[in-house]
Each structure stands twice: as structure tokens, then as C-alpha cells.
């Protein structure tokens, strides 16, 4: 049983990769540490549950990485995906620290494996967790427990007592009552607000009701909201979130990676009026991956359908939900409850615009439409071989960009520009400092591990002084 009357050196709020790295790093630096995870034990770890790899810089190939990934290349990739919306000093510091994380995280019990099937494009840059994100979490929790870190589950924090940028205590829910826990320092690693539909509605309106959330329902952003309310400076665009197109039949929460669809390039995408609305052949994976969530969110009722025919049905990874099939385009439209005539016209118009070409889905090939609006600029082939198939898709929200501003020590910056006396942040709650826009595979975990480790170390040092 955890004694909540004692004063801890470091209080970590959150239970994912960043939180555990902070807890382990603080404990290894000699601090007493309490971790408050708001979710039940099975759902511990927030979005980390659904991750599978981490992007770290390295100067040479390793047993699991196929080649070097220099710091400069990492930085250029980050600049590309964020379109400059990043804090260069912080980002470059994170990238240089990421090199050592490759080894440090292994010392904490996490095991690597070569890139998974179907992800060869990441084999050089990203290290994959053996067994995935939950295996990584299990290893980190085991290490934390062995080191003597106290951990409470279903420990929802209701309020933070902060005086002029100085953390004093947290009030947490304990059964029907409340308990107060004091600590010399705070590490906030409690994620974003992607599962908080009401909050999402502030920016997206009623459309947010049709969003599916890819992670657990516990990513409600309550700690983020409290901190911003207590004078911490915000960073990142509050209106933005990372959204991909996922199967509309997925559960509202926690469908994870298996609900995504990457079949857009093999067909056409239509809305509920059976009309196309965007160039399905614009770009290659993974760049195209992240735009379709937002595109579908902008369509009526936030629903769209990927339409393809039987010639491509084995061209992509097997999907959890089978495609909906129809012997004719009209029959398929009927099953999707769309206007058959409208869908037939869309398909016919598309087929008429397809030009002869050499198809190659691994490059930007020369298969494109002519005289069609919007065009399909690559990988355009006729949809004419029955049976015809469809995947219904909706926006699947992965994470949000709004966060708390921090410095190199992961210390929070207050609205007046002063540093907080004893509050640190790590992981998605401060990711917006580095990742103001876009996404590169595995970078969320890099942010979590690097800043988690730093935050824990700095918090422990502050607590000792």
C-alpha cells in the first residue's frame, strides 16, 4: 500500500512511455517517486499501448537498424514534416539525446527487433519494440517496480495546487473520496486531449461527434487543462490534431493500429454523395497517410468510402474488417446506402479519364487521369473488375498538438516567460514544442523517452537541492 502522507521527491502524473522514463530516471538519480496513472492497470500507458517503434539518430547500422541515420538527416526530416513549426534548439537537442536513448531504453528492459513486415521503409531510421508498445510498457513498469517506484492505478488527478509557478500538491480521486499528495517536484506526462470529445468540439463543432479515437478513453487532457489554467505557457496549435482515415466500423475508442486503411491509392475515395473530393494519388506513404483523416473530417457527416475492385484486393495488408462487396457498382452502392446512379456515374467518369500507363505503387508512377476534377495524379487504374469493394472510413484521432512550453531541461515555462520552480513536462503533453505540425513515424516515442529521461533527472536533482 502506498503511503500518501509522506512527501515524495517526484510526483509523475501519467503512465505512458514518457512518465515511466521520467520515473525510472528520477529513481535512478536517488529520488522517491510516485506515479499516478489515471487508467486501470490493463489500459495503463495511454497512447504508448498502440506504438511500436521509436525514431533515434545513430551513426552506424546496428543489429536491428539497416544503416546510419545522422542527426542532420533527422533534423531535416523533422523540418520537412513540421514545415518549420518546431523549436530548433529544443529539437536539435532532442535529436542528439536520442542517440543514447537507443541504449538507455534497453538498459530499462525494453527489447528491440528489426522492422516489422510491411514497414521496410522504416528499417533504417526506426527501432521496433519486440512485442510492440504494451511489451515496452510491461518492461518499463517491471523495471520501475524493481527500483522501488510507487505506482497507483485508476488514480485520477482532480486538481493541482500551484502557487506562482510552484507545484505544491495534487488532489486525486480515491474511491468516493479525495486524497492529497505532496511532492517536491512535478513531472506532467499525461498526454493530450484527443479522447475529450467536448474539448475537440470547441474547435471542430458537432463534427467531433463522428470522430473515432484511436487510443484509450483516458487521454482526456485534464492535466494539460489544469496546467494551462495555472499560468503555464501553451505551445502548439490547439485546433489541430493528427487524424488518419480508419474503418468506420471501428470502436469509438482504442481501436489502435489495426483499424487503419492504406488502400486509398488502389482505388477512389468518395463521400456520402458518391462524389470524389481529393486526389487519391497525390503522394506516397507515409505522407499521404496523415492527410486523409482531415479530408474525411471535412466531408458531410464525416464519412467516406474507399472504392476498389477485385484486382487489387490482395495488394495491401489484410484488414480487421472485411471490405463490403457488391457484384455490380450499383449493388455496392445499395449496400453502402448511397445513390447507385451517382456512384455508377462517378466510377464511369473516373474510368473514362484513366490513361494507359505502367503501374508501380512503390514510386510516383505515370498512371493518372486526364480531364477529371479532382484528378488522380498517380496509380490511377480503371475500376472495372467485379466484385467491387468498399471500406467505409471516418477520421481517427491519434493525438493533439496543444501542449505546455518547456526548455531544454523539460522545465515548464510560465506565461510571463519565467521558468517554473519545480514543474517539468514530458511526452505528448509537451510534444508541440518540437512537433508543431505533421508527424514522422516513431517521433512521439522519441519525444517521450528523451524528455521523460531528462525531466526525471532534472526533477530528482531539483528535489535533492
Amino acid at each position, binding site marked *: 500500500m502506498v503511503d500518501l502522507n509522506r512527501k515524495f521527491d517526484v510526483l509523475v502524473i501519467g503512465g505512458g512511455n514518457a512518465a515511466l522514463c521520467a520515473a525510472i530516471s528520477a529513481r535512478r538519480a536517488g529520488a522517491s517517486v510516485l506515479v499516478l496513472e489515471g487508467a486501470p492497470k490493463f489500459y495503463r500507458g495511454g497512447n504508448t499501448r498502440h506504438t511500436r517503434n521509436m525514431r533515434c539518430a545513430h551513426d552506424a547500422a546496428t543489429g536491428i537498424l539497416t544503416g546510419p541515420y545522422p542527426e542532420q538527416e533527422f533534423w531535416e526530416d523533422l523540418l520537412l514534416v513540421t514545415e518549420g513549426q518546431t523549436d530548433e534548439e529544443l529539437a536539435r537537442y532532442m535529436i542528439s539525446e536520442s542517440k543514447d536513448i537507443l541504449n538507455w531504453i534497453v538498459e530499462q528492459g525494453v527489447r528491440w527487433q528489426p522492422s516489422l513486415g510491411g514497414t521496410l521503409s522504416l528499417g533504417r531510421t526506426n527501432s521496433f519494440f519486440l512485442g510492440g508498445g504494451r511489451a515496452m510498457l*510491461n518492461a518499463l513498469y517491471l523495471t520501475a517496480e524493481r527500483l522501488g517506484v510507487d505506482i497507483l492505478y485508476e488514480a485520477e488527478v482532480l486538481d493541482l495546487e500551484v502557487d506562482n509557478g510552484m507545484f505544491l500538491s495534487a488532489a486525486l480521486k480515491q474511491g468516493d473520496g479525495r486524497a492529497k499528495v505532496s511532492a517536491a517536484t512535478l513531472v506532467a506526462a499525461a498526454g493530450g486531449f484527443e479522447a475529450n470529445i467536448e474539448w475537440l468540439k470547441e474547435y471542430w463543432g458537432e463534427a467531433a461527434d463522428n470522430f473515432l479515437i484511436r487510443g484509450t478513453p483516458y487521454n482526456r487532457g485534464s492535466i494539460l487543462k489544469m496546467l494551462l489554467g495555472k499560468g503555464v505557457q501553451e505551445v502548439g496549435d490547439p485546433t489541430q490534431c493528427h487524424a488518419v482515415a480508419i474503418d468506420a466500423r471501428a470502436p469509438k475508442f482504442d481501436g489502435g493500429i489495426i483499424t487503419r486503411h492504406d488502400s486509398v491509392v488502389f482505388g477512389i475515395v468518395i463521400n456520402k454523395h458518391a462524389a470524389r473530393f481529393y486526389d487519391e494519388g497525390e503522394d506516397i506513404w507515409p505522407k499521404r497517410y496523415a492527410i486523409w483523416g482531415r479530408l474525411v473530417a471535412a466531408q458531410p457527416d464525416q464519412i467516406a468510402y474507399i472504392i476498389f475492385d477485385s484486382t487489387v484486393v490482395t495488394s495491401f495488408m*489484410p484488414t480487421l474488417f472485411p471490405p463490403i462487396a457488391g457484384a455490380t457498382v450499383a449493388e455496392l452502392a445499395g449496400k453502402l446506402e448511397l445513390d447507385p446512379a451517382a456512384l455508377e456515374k462517378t466510377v464511369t467518369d473516373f474510368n473514362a479519364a484513366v490513361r494507359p500507363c505502367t503501374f508501380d505503387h512503390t514510386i510516383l508512377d505515370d498512371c493518372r487521369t486526364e480531364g477529371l476534377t479532382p484528378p488522380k495524379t498517380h496509380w490511377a487504374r480503371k475500376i472495372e473488375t467485379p466484385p467491387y469493394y468498399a471500406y467505409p472510413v471516418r477520421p481517427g484521432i491519434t493525438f493533439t498538438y496543444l501542449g505546455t512550453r518547456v526548455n531544454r531541461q523539460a522545465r515548464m515555462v510560465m506565461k510571463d516567460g519565467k521558468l517554473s520552480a519545480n514543474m517539468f513536462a514530458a511526452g505528448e503533453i509537451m510534444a508541440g514544442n518540437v512537433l508543431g505540425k505533421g508527424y514522422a513515424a516513431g517521433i512521439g516515442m522519441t519525444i517521450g523517452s528523451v524528455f521523460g529521461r531528462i525531466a526525471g533527472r532534472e526533477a530528482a536533482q531539483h528535489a535533492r537541492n
Partner: protein
Amino acid sequence: MTVCNSCRYCEGLCAVFPAMEMRRSFSDGDLNYLANLCHACGACYADCQFAPPHQFDVNLPKTLAIARAESYAAYAWPRACAGLFENNGVVIALIASLSVAAFIFGFSVFNEPRALHGIHTGPGAFYALMPHHAMAVLFSAALLYAILALVMGVRAFWRDIGEPVGMRADAPSLWQAIRDAGNLRYLDGGGVGCFNEDERPTDRRKIYHHLTFYGFLLCFAATCVATLYHFLLAREAPYAWWDLPVVLGTLGGIGLLIGPAGLLAANWRRDPDLADQARTGMDTAFILMLFLTSFSGIALLLLRDTAAMGPLLALHLGVVFALFITMPYGKFVHGLYRFVALVRYARERRMMGNT
């Protein structure tokens, strides 16, 4: 498994997932192949973000454990004996008891009443109770029957799972499978050890299984050496403590005491979510049979110069006889089917060009 095949996070844990990824749909044979390829280490359950209480309710170790047990019955030969896998624990216990009783009864009927409790020493002492040729004929027949039934079962299994590959196994695949089975490569949770009670890999099943398996092999070797002694060198049992059959049997017997005891304890502690709850009797029965074999054998060795020798010999022979004839109808078959699955896997990997 649709969930597994579209997730693939577990790919590095064991052979089951790469084998699964080579297929987009699964026939019954495929399912039985995967089920027997699974070593029940539990890692994919502890690592799965979609395990219960998640609504996707993915529990591969349990699903495959059930499929595995069903496959044992499906390939049983003759077909009429498939039913023995139902309530297997009771069936095995019954056969073992009857077998022991038969030996005690036999000893009493064919010998003078005093002989069972008499003291017999020196070469040929055992054969005072049961003539050697009777023993040899009886046990050879039992063993030959067991081998026949096992071969027929394996044949049916190989046909069912190997259909797209063909009937022949190539030597490198066989050798790979021997190594993978010999060191229980896939009973390690992907490197950290097995999961048994919870998400912490603390289990020692691999060590206990090694003790059991190699103990069993040593005991079997002891029997073979003794047979050769008898027929080639005309040296009759019992042998001195330093003689090869006794040394092999004793070492094997010790392994076969500690191993099954450890496995049984691990089974009792196992998270019920991981196990095929309806069929724990099959595991327990086989483990107990092995334990009783070594226990009665070692007791016989220690007390062979006393009046207890007769009853102990009856017990030991009864248990071994029951072990032989129930081999094709109990947990023993897991080793064969798993080995065959490993051969198939090694072969598949070679054909895919990435050993």
C-alpha cells in the same frame, strides 16, 4: 487471428506470427499447424493491447490451446480412440490403475503367494516374479502399438498441414527443427522468459521441461542399454549401481522427478486466462504418469533388496505399461506434433528464402 494478422506487433516473439503472416486465410489444417507451433509461452497475451478486457477479446494462447487439444483428438488413430481425449485425466488414471492392478494380480497368480513379498537378489532377481521373455514380449508389443498409433497420427497431421508443401521434409529443415525443439527456442517469450502467472516473466517452465524431456530420454536410453545387455551380452538385470543402465536411469529419473514436479507447480499457478480450462486434466495426467514412472523406478532401485521389491516392481511395470499404451492418447503427442510443426515452419522459412 484477423486482429493478429492486421496488427503484427508480435512478429518477433515466436514462430507462430511469421507463419500466420504467410497466409491470408486459414484452413483447419493451417489452424492445427499454428496451434501446434505455439509453445504456450504466453508472451503474446501479456503484450497484446487487444487482450481482454479490451472488446476485441484477443487471447491467442487460449485459442490455440483449445485448437491444439482438439487437433490431438482429430488425428488420433484408430479414429475410435479419439474419444479418449475427452476427460483424458480420468481415462489415463483409470488405465494406469488397471494396469498396476493387473501386474499385482499377475504376479500373485503366476507365482507362489509368498514370492510377491519375498526377497530376491542377484542377476535375474526380477525375473523370479515375471519371466524375462514375458516381460519383453508384453512391453515390446505395447511399445510397437504405441509407435504405430503415433506414426499414424503424425501422418494424418502432416498431410493436413503440409498439403501445399508436399510430403517430404528436407534434411536442413529437419536439423533446424531438431535444434529448435532441443533447446525449446520458442518457449522463451521472445527472450525474456515465459509468462505464466501475470505480465511479469518469472516462469521457469523451460528448465523444468528440459529436465523432464532429457530425463525421459535418459530413462529411455537406460532401457535400451539394458535390453542390449540382456540380448547381446547375456547380462541380466538388476545391475549394480555403477552400471550404465542404472546410471542413465538414475540421472534420468532424477530429472523426471524434478521436471514434472516443477511443471505441475507452474500449471497450478498459471493464469486461468491463458489455459484451456476444460482440459487441464490431460496435462496433469501426463505429468503425473512421468512422475510416477521415475518415482516407482527410483523406489525400486533403492528398495530392490527388500521385501518391497515385488510390489514396487509391479507398480513400476504397471505404470510404464500404462504410459506406453496411453502415449498416443494423451499429452505425449504434443511433442511429436510440435516437432512436425517446427519442421514445417523451418521448411516454409527456407522456401521463403529467409532462414
